[in-house]
């Protein structure tokens, strides 16, 4: 996937320019606070840009079709499947699992996953954690979910995160080891931490 050979003059507009294997574009990615100027084949997904060009291998390639959530990262603070987002179309700041810790201290969700042993093989874990970080933000902003009947959903204020709510809101992240009960525990713990 390395496209070093196609790198060339930056035309500064992100417009296409043919390389040996296909049109390329200059792409500026802001990842975990660092700005990267890249020239990428237009076909490069954000996931491949992170893993193959920036050596950020936290986000995982599971299904590569937006079905498993292993590639979940935050773009502009929102969780997305990085395998379905073309890097050339991405111009908001990206946060990956590598960028969650602050001042040498793990993010509360990372700590909760460790404390609750919320994994077995660990392959889905970076995606689970990034997804859960956004889940807490969404709940704090009062976003509704499928399991909350509309008449029961609060018109404003934070959503009530029951176990059913956490399971529904984490449904975009599969865990083939089946560590779901502990994942729900970890998210619930982190939620209690943040609302305390």
């Amino acid at each position, binding site marked *: 996937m390395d496209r070093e050979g196609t790198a060339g003059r930056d035309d500064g507009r*992100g*417009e*296409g320019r043919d390389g040996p*294997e*296909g*049109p390329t*574009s200059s792409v500026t990615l802001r990842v975990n606070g660092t700005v990267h100027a890249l020239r990428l*084949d*237009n*076909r490069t*997904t954000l996931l491949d840009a992170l893993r193959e060009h920036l050596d950020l291998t936290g986000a995982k390639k599971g299904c*590569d*079709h*937006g079905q498993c*959530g292993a590639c*979940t990262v935050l773009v502009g603070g*929102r*969780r*997305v*499947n990085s395998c*379905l*987002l*073309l890097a*050339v*179309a991405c111009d908001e700041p990206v946060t990956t699992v590598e960028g969650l810790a602050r001042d040498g201290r793990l993010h509360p969700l990372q700590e909760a996953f460790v404390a609750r042993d919320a994994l077995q093989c660990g392959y889905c874990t970076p995606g689970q954690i990034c*997804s859960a970080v*956004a*889940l807490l933000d*969404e709940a704090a*902003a*009062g*976003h*509704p*979910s*499928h399991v909350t009947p*509309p*008449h029961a*959903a609060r*018109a404003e204020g934070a959503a009530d995160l029951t176990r059913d709510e956490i*399971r*529904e*809101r984490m*449904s*975009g*992240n599969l865990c083939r080891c089946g560590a779901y009960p502990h994942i729900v525990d970890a998210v619930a713990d982190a939620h209690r931490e943040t609302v305390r």
Partner: protein
Amino acid sequence: MKPFEHVRAERTERALAAHARHPRAQYLAGGTNLVDLMKLGVLDPPLLVDIGRLPLDTVAETSDGGLGIGATVRNSDLAAHPLVRSRYPVLSQALLSGASPQLRNVATTGGNLLQRTRCPYFQDVSHPCNKREPGTGCPARDGVHRDLAVLGHSAHCVATHPSDMAVALAALDARVRLLGPDGARELPLTDFHRLPGDRPERDTVLRPGELVTEVVLPPPAGTSAYRKARDRASYAFALASVAAVLAVADGRVRHAALAFGGLAHRPWRARAAEEVLRGAPADEETFARAVDAELAAARPLRDNGFKVPLARGLAVRVLTDLAAAS
């Protein structure tokens, strides 16, 4: 994935002009379905016109008390919008019952309408498919079709439209605004998607180069709800779903709009059922009679007959719940 050019449009007219450069160009918004289909080799556009930055990302009340929804409003933002939650709960519920939070954060209103069928033969380029390659045949008709159509299908195609959102929009009498090389036009959502007939490669009546710019809702005509049956509790396409809008006065149905998802090549507006409902007593007996009148047209395939009683149950339940709440 085949190589492609990428052009970002900052203005709507520019997007149309860029698209005109190639007959097989595609507009790129969220890309959650388009990029996947490109990976699968189902689509190979030589040019993507990126419309992600166009100023089509707002939700605003219209002068008549309806709602204008920009084509690039994200599904999650639309589902959480206060006016959608309070006035059009069926739309919020339909959106939240589809896909995953990650996909809803990226997928757009226009893209949701234009997503392609998840028929396994359409998505697998090693099989023939009349929708993907006209004239090659439909292996689904006698093959794996448990998830596919029971209404409105043809000898050429038994695919279903996968959207939940579009089913709610059909029941809400939404209108779709389009902008193309020949100017702007507007049509009812129920006329936007097609039945397959002998042209299953055409999902919609969209003309070459036309762009969905907005979806417009009239003021709410009653209370509303969405109910969906699927193989998993979450993150699965509908086996059958129902969107209903109901207004009751003095125990009788004053307004009823009913649409089915997961049953046909397009969101299935149940006009025959509505005919029975109009002015009739708002009770379970009426609702069952109305739904039966609609589903009498069902022509199940070998393995999907279960969808008919499933859809019946969903519809009667939703209408009964709405009547009890009003």
